Structure formats: C-alpha cells, structure tokens
C-alpha cells in the first residue's frame, strides 16, 4: 500500500462561490457518475447487505430470517472468536509495531551511515533487498515459508542441524505453542520493506543542516536519531502505523496458505474465521456478524489514524506561519 499524507479536507483549497456566481457546477458531477454507480454496485450495496445479513439467521439459501442481536450475543460468548481476535493483536505487533521500529532504525542507518560513507548505489541495492518480499504474492510467500519451516526436510531445521543446534529443531507451523510466532516471523519478513521505503523517502525531506548542526554540537548517532530523525518523520510514522495496523487486522492469505488457522485454531484470525464461517460452516448470518464487527474496528482505527494525521499536519502548519 502507498499512502498520501494529505488530509481530505485540504485537497482542493478554498473556493468562493460568490466569485463565479453563474458558473454551472453540475457538469463536473457527470464525471463522478460512472464511479459513483460502480461504487454503489460493488461496495455500498454489498456492504449494506452484509450488515443486514449479520442480523439474520441465514445459511445462504432461502430467505434470511431476522434474528436481531442473536448473532452478536453469540459473538460475545464465542471463545473461538476472541481467540482469533487476540491473535490479531499478535499480528499487529508483527506487521505494524516491529516493522515500524526496525524499519526506522534500518532506514536511518542506511540514510545516515551507508548513504554518506559508502554511496547511494549500495543504499539502493540494500533497499531493494528489503523491499523485495513486498512485491511477492502472499500466496507465494506462504509456499516458500511453509516449505522452509517444514518439520522434516525443511530448510530451517536442516540448517539448525547443520550448525549443531539440532536440539532447536521444531515443527514450526505444526506445534500449537510455536505456530503463531512462526507466522509472526514470516509477516515481519513480508512487511518490513514498506516502512523502510516510506521512511527513507521521508528522510530525504529532512534538512541536512539539522544533522550538521547536531553533529557539530557533538551529538552521537542515537541522539541525532532520537531528536532529529524521529520528530522529523513523525507524519510518515503515523501513516505507516495506521496502515500496517489495518493490514494486520485484515490478514487472510498468509494464514490460509501457512496454517489454515491451525493447529487447533492456534493461528486463527478474524478474517479467516469469518471466511470459514461463510464458506465451510455456511453460517452466513454469523459470518456476516464477524465481518461487520471487524469492519467497525478497522474503520474506527482508520478514522483515528486519519484524524491524528490531519491534526499533526495542522499543528505543524500553525507552527510554520
């Protein structure tokens, strides 16, 4: 995903209607018409249908039977759902917190150390290495990793044996105590490139004089990182955290391909849970409830993230003028 930091409200600037009292505005609306109709058919109607179905008892055939809040009550008591939701929080750590933190340090090190002392070519090559997993279909990443992590003959276990750590061998994806952490590790690998590239782009915006002044004052690398890099690219950090958290809550393909939610539900997540409720258990009403709750959580987070962003930008602009 890429993101614009720009808030929606400031996109088009101010317009004073009195200045052009007779210019017709309707004709521009015509350009929005195809998009609006397509959105109605593909997003709005299905979304409203899904919300409605969440209040019904429906197996996908016949007509849905209104059941009010029954599905929601069931959800509250459904330990399977809460377990899957808890795993979501682990995914937030693996896909948002860790990649952001590591990405920051890597981006700063690449920009500051390697870029200055070894040249931009090496930076470009290293950045490319970190970004590569991002262009891989998640299904393919899943194949690669489930084979690497396979219990017998998997590369990781073979490697551990080869370097004399045979006792560390594990059934990485098949052991309920470890599987979630293995999936988390894979997701860090998948996700790391995105914050790295965004942060490196952000760093190019920072005035080099800030660093030079700090260096003259005798500030070491960590101090400069803490007092210049971090505050300067805060907008990027906000954006990356918001979008990666949303991506973490939506994660589906990786779980499908790596573990199918197993073993014994140890790696189940809400999106996979709703998928199986829809298509394997054919409890469409309940599946719709789960996905509605997931949607609400994600929308609240997205709005909070966007709000935070606009407020930070406004504060910054206020400070400048």
């Amino acid at each position: 995903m890429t993101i614009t930091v720009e808030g929606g409200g400031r996109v088009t600037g101010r317009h004073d209607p009195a200045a052009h009292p007779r210019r017709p505005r309707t004709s521009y609306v015509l350009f929005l018409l195809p998009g609006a109709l397509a959105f109605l058919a593909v997003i709005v109607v299905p979304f409203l249908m899904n919300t409605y179905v969440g209040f019904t008892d429906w197996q996908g055939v016949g007509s849905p039977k209104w059941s009010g809040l029954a599905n929601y009550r069931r959800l509250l008591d459904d330990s399977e759902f809460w377990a899957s939701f808890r795993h979501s929080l682990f995914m937030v750590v693996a896909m948002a917190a860790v990649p952001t933190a590591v990405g920051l340090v890597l981006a700063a090190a690449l920009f500051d150390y390697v870029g200055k002392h070894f040249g931009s070519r090496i930076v470009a090559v290293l950045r490319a290495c970190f970004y590569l997993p991002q262009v891989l279909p998640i299904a393919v990443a899943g194949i690669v990793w489930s084979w690497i992590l396979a219990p017998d003959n998997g590369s990781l276990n073979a490697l551990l044996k080869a370097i004399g750590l045979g006792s560390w061998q594990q059934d990485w994806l098949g052991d309920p105590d470890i599987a979630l952490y293995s999936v988390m590790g894979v997701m860090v690998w998948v996700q790391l490139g995105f914050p790295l590239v965004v942060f490196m782009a952000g760093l190019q915006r920072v005035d080099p004089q800030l660093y030079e002044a700090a260096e003259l004052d005798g500030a070491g690398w960590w101090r400069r990182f803490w007092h210049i890099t971090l505050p300067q690219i805060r907008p990027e950090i906000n954006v990356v955290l918001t979008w990666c958290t949303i991506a973490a809550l939506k994660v589906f393909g990786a779980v499908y391909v790596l573990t199918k939610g197993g073993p014994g539900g140890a790696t189940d997540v809400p999106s996979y849970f709703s998928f199986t409720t829809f298509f394997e258990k054919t409890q469409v009403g309940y599946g719709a409830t789960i996905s509605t709750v997931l949607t609400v959580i994600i929308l609240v987070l997205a709005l909070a993230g966007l709000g935070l962003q606009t407020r930070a930008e406004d504060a910054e602009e206020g400070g400048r003028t």
Partner: protein
Amino acid sequence: MTAAIRRWPVLVALCVAALFMVVPFLIVAVNAVKSPAEYSRNGPLSLPRGLYLDGLKDFWQRVDYGQKLVNSVLISGSVAVLAAVLSVLNAYAIGIGRIKGRTWVLAFFVLANVLPQEALVYPVYYLSKQAGLYDTRLSVIIVFTVIQAAFGTYLLSSVLGQFPREIIEAARIDGANKWQVLWRIVVPVSRPTIGVLLVFFFIWTWNEFLLPLVMLISNDNQTVSVALGVLQGQRLMDATMTNAAALLGVLPAIVFFLVFQRTLTRGIAVGAVK
C-alpha cells in the same frame, strides 16, 4: 580512522540483514532445479549437482501454469487500465471540478478502500451468482476496478487539487470543453502519477487472494496466486514440486520488481512525502 572502523560493522550488519531477506528466494531457486532423489539424499541446503528441470515442467503442465499466467495478466491488466480511467474521472470532478461536498465524497472513497474485503465477499459472491457472473474473470475485474479506483481517486484528487488553474482557464478561454480539457491537458500533465497508479494496481491485483479464491473456482479462470495458494493448502506436493511452484510464483514478481523498481519506490515517495 576510528570513525571508519565504526562504520564498517554497521554496513556488515545491514548486509547480513539484507541477505536474510533474500535467502528464501535463493534457497527456492536452488531447490527448484534439484531432482527429488537428490533432494532426499542431500537435503535442502546442498548446492544442486546439475540442472534438473523436470520438476518445473511437471508442475507447469499439472496446473496449466500458462493459462494461469494469461488469466493473471488479463485480470490485472484490465483492472489497472479501467481503475486508472475511473480514478481520473473521479479525481477530475473532485480535484479540478471542486464539486460540492467533495471532502465527504473523498472520505467515502478512502473508507471504501480501507474496508475489509470480508465485509463484501459473501454479498459479492451471492450477487454475482444471481447475475450469472460467478466464476468469470469479468466479475473479479469489476470488483477490483472499483476497489483500486478508490485508492486512485484519493491519490489523484490531491495531485489534481494542486493543478495550475491558469492552464485550465486558458484552455477554457480558447473554447475547449471540460471533456477536452481532461484528455488534452489534465491527463497528459498527470502522466507520471497515472503511471505509478497503473503499476500499483497491476501488482496489487496480481497479488490479491481472498476474492479471487472465492470467485474463481474453475481451473481455467484461476489466477497464479489462487492456483498456488490452493495447491499449497491441499499439501499434495513433494518438496521439489513445492519449490518449482514457489519459483514459478516468484519469477513474475521479480520481473515486475526489476522492471518497475523505480516506479515502485518513487510511487511510495510520491504518496508519502506529499
């Protein structure tokens, strides 16, 4: 001197980290060209003795990989173009036309893009069955055109919002109508951003999993991602074939990466630094 000594460990550490990122790709490539006998004798870490390509060939034929590639290219290509057109039309109305309530319209598009696909998947599945579009590539094209256009509208609107007004005013005075202004002036000037969108739409659609998994069940319609994901889920493959599958899945991604690297990183820069 001491500074130089301190720099090297940082570089070495970064190189080791980078190596860790690409090792999975290398190990897949190495094992995809081993014979099953060699694999079971020497394990996954040994270098291949020769070039054994039967695994790749078997896998290609078994899943009809050529057809999957055609499907993926067809779906992703159509989505990229259609979503870019839709984004341009939407963003023209919002960014240049400054229609009333544009902030709300834009917020709506953003939310549509953020929405989890799980909240759409069953109704889309159901409606497409009713409309006779289920298990057609067209159904996936339509859905992803709209989802990608939501993001495109957001990005392009902010770019077009800063479009120099004088150029448009001048064209209007010369008698160009809105349609002509759009195609003769706005689109050519915004070509770099539209290019970025095309690349991202193509790759994102290529990588999509959930909706194509649900919508495309017959072998002739499946995309690369779905075909590989489903096979993996069934765990029917031996190690060599798994690697063949992985390598064939990785290769298009690497090709995109090499071809579009600059666009990809510039795209993220365009998006994030604005």
